[in-house]
């Protein structure tokens, strides 16, 4: 019953899940669109639109059965034709589709509710990739997705199978979803994103409230039921407030300082990069940028503790804070004080705060850091030009499979594409043995600490706040907050 009012940090560029990687877009869109798989609370992929799958002995042929009777918001039944069309578009144009489709030979319908994917070689992460909705294979009606290209779908084509259907997008005002009465929920107890989904609200309203203070005040004043991205420093205060519930995000995000592997003083000089890494103590930056102890972890592993991908390989270099050692190492690496251009944006306070601390630490170790402060859009433009920067600051959301981490992409600014990386990456994707994959990943992580294409800054557990009237939210969010099985 009623309307859920969700204060977002801004507006998503589009809800088209296949092409967009914005977290905000997924937070909204996961109510509208569904993929074949999703994650349960342990971050393992479980069927959603799929009923189940069989994999051939050689691991190359995957046959997926689809649930029957699932309806799109336009009233049509979901069939294999829709799924094949959706997967094909995702494979060709989707942001993360290429990762899988590099290895895909064909996708075809083998029945009204069955499809078959043929791989060129076994590919381990396929199910994780299918389950990750962000930039992932959301299922659209074939009529819409056929002929659609890279261009995001326009709002009138937002037709999915989810518990809520898209209703309206008022620029600057809100995105509104309404309950889809013909929704057919998957079976089973709700667990993570898996299991039964019940739409309790008449409508969900995602209202952009860019100013964080306003999000907090608005929730306290009762104008919003839920508000995202709240600064760590307010945690204690908000947790003590009986009018506010705090909800931690289970998957931490982490800052990354990319180094330019293509041009400039850092391009090939791994020793110098290691010297930079050596100079930095990550803890003070986390203390300052995030605040309370519980909300950050000085963790060098790219995936958090408790996750299957957790590994300490290479992490002894993570946070040394050894100014003197770094100075010596830099000198040995031939560094003579030339300026190092470090770009950071002020749009995310934690980027800026961290960069300030790092700059101080690096200066102490004798580095000549030229901190360049831009707004996010400018930074994005500049970072694509190799001659404009040496380091830049960004952050990364939680991903269920390391293959999805941006540094794995050779084209990502920084352009890390050494032969060592290429070799390990090939092995990593080729294997579908979980244990072997974890092992290869730890080697990759070690390589990252050695070649330093990027520098992790530590895990940040963000949290959201909600009105105590909301029932069913649970203690923590998995990746994106969702509002099926939630009521007021």
């Amino acid at each position, binding site marked *: 019953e009623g309307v859920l009012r969700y204060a977002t940090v801004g507006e998503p560029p589009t809800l088209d899940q296949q092409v967009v990687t914005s977290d905000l877009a997924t937070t909204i869109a996961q109510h509208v669109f569904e993929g074949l798989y999703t994650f349960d609370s342990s971050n393992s992929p479980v069927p959603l639109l799929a009923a189940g799958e069989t994999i051939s002995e050689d691991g190359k042929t995957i046959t997926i059965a689809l649930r029957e009777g699932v309806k799109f918001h336009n009233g049509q039944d979901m069939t294999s034709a829709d799924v094949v069309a959706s997967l094909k578009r995702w494979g060709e144009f989707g942001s993360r589709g290429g990762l899988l489709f590099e290895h895909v030979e064909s996708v075809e319908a083998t029945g009204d509710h069955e499809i078959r994917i043929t791989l060129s070689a076994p590919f381990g992460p396929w199910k994780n990739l299918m389950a990750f909705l962000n930039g992932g294979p959301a299922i659209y009606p074939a009529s819409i997705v056929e002929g659609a290209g890279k261009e995001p779908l326009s709002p009138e084509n937002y037709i999915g199978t989810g518990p809520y259907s898209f209703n309206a997008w008022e620029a600057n005002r809100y995105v509104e979803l309404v309950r889809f009465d013909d929704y057919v929920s998957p079976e089973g107890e709700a667990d993570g994103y898996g299991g039964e989904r019940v739409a309790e609200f008449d409508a969900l309203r995602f209202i952009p409230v860019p100013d964080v203070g306003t999000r907090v005040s608005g929730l306290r004043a009762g104008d919003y039921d839920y508000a995202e991205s709240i600064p760590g420093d307010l945690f204690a205060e908000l947790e003590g407030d009986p009018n506010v519930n705090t909800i931690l995000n289970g998957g931490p995000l982490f800052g990354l300082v990319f180094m330019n592997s293509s041009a400039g003083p850092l391009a090939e000089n791994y020793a110098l990069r290691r010297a930079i890494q050596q100079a930095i103590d990550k803890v003070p930056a986390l203390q300052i940028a995030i605040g309370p102890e519980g909300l950050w972890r000085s963790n060098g592993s790219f995936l958090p503790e408790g996750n299957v991908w957790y590994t300490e390989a290479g992490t002894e270099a993570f946070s040394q804070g050894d100014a003197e050692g770094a100075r010596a190492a830099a000198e040995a690496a031939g560094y003579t004080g030339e300026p190092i251009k470090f770009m950071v944006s002020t749009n995310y306070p934690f980027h800026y705060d961290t960069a300030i601390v790092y700059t*101080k630490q690096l200066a102490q170790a004798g580095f000549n850091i030229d901190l360049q402060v831009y707004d996010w859009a400018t930074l994005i433009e500049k970072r694509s030009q190799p001659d404009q920067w040496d380091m830049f600051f960004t952050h990364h959301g939680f991903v269920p499979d390391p293959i999805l981490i941006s540094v794995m992409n050779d084209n990502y600014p920084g352009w890390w594409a050494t032969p060592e990386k290429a070799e390990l990456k090939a092995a990593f994707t080729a294997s579908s043995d979980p244990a072997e994959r974890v092992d290869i990943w730890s080697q990759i992580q070690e390589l990252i600490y050695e070649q330093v294409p990027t520098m992790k800054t530590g895990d940040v557990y963000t949290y959201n706040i909600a009105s105590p009237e909301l029932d069913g939210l649970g203690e923590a969010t998995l990746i994106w907050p969702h509002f099926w099985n939630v009521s007021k």
Partner: protein
Amino acid sequence: MMAVASIRSVFAGRTFAQIGLVWLAFVALAAIFSPLIAPFDPYEIDPIARLTEPGWPHLFGTDHFGRDSFSRALYGARMTVLIGLGAVIVALLTGGLVGMLSAYFTRLGHVLMRGVDVLMAFPALLMALVLMTLLERSVMNTIIVIGVVYATTTARILFGMTLKLKGEVFVDAAVCSGAGHASILFRHILPNLVSPLLVQASFIFAFAQLQAAALDFLGLGLPPEVPSWGNMLSEERIYVTRAPWLLIFPGALIILSVFSMNLVGDAMRDSIDPRFKDDIAGV
């Protein structure tokens, strides 16, 4: 010459304006001597001493970097003066010159003032925003952008005032004496613009602070690390309930200083040549 006497006459019997003047003198002193007075380095980060309450040794408490707010406030006085003076200088040098020349050389004025008209149509804050995104966030750029924003109004105002002065009989008299353009502009007209310009400057000075704070707030002003009162407010604004002192002190400082500048400007306005009263904007 008449300076001291005229300052005295401007402020005679205006208690508030006098208090304002005293406050501004404090600000100026703080700006000049901040490195000597400040107990801490305003950039010194201390993760342990984050968000400490006001007390000893952190008179105004510390911010989320653990930096000493009192020291930052002292250095903030420096930014206040810098932004104010910078904006005034930019506005007067560009806008003022355009306005004066346009009024004096009528034909040139037709062209230039059309341009000013066009610029006037651009809302000041939006223009500042667009300009700021064009440029890197830096103290210099902020000053220039704010100065440019006030340049258009200044040009308008100076245009009007110069036009009035150009019609004065003593200008005719100078022409009859054979004085050239430069002499008339700078020897006969400009000195008569000094006091209205001072008034105008005081308002620009005051409102530039608010404009700068607004830019800081929108994330397009001074680099956030720079200790300015506007930055102190906008960078720490989420702590309004958690660490109220972080907003109260710099807020009070801005308000007090802008208020003082306004009081001083008002006092000066009341005492200037009535010819120009209409022209001078509250900006």
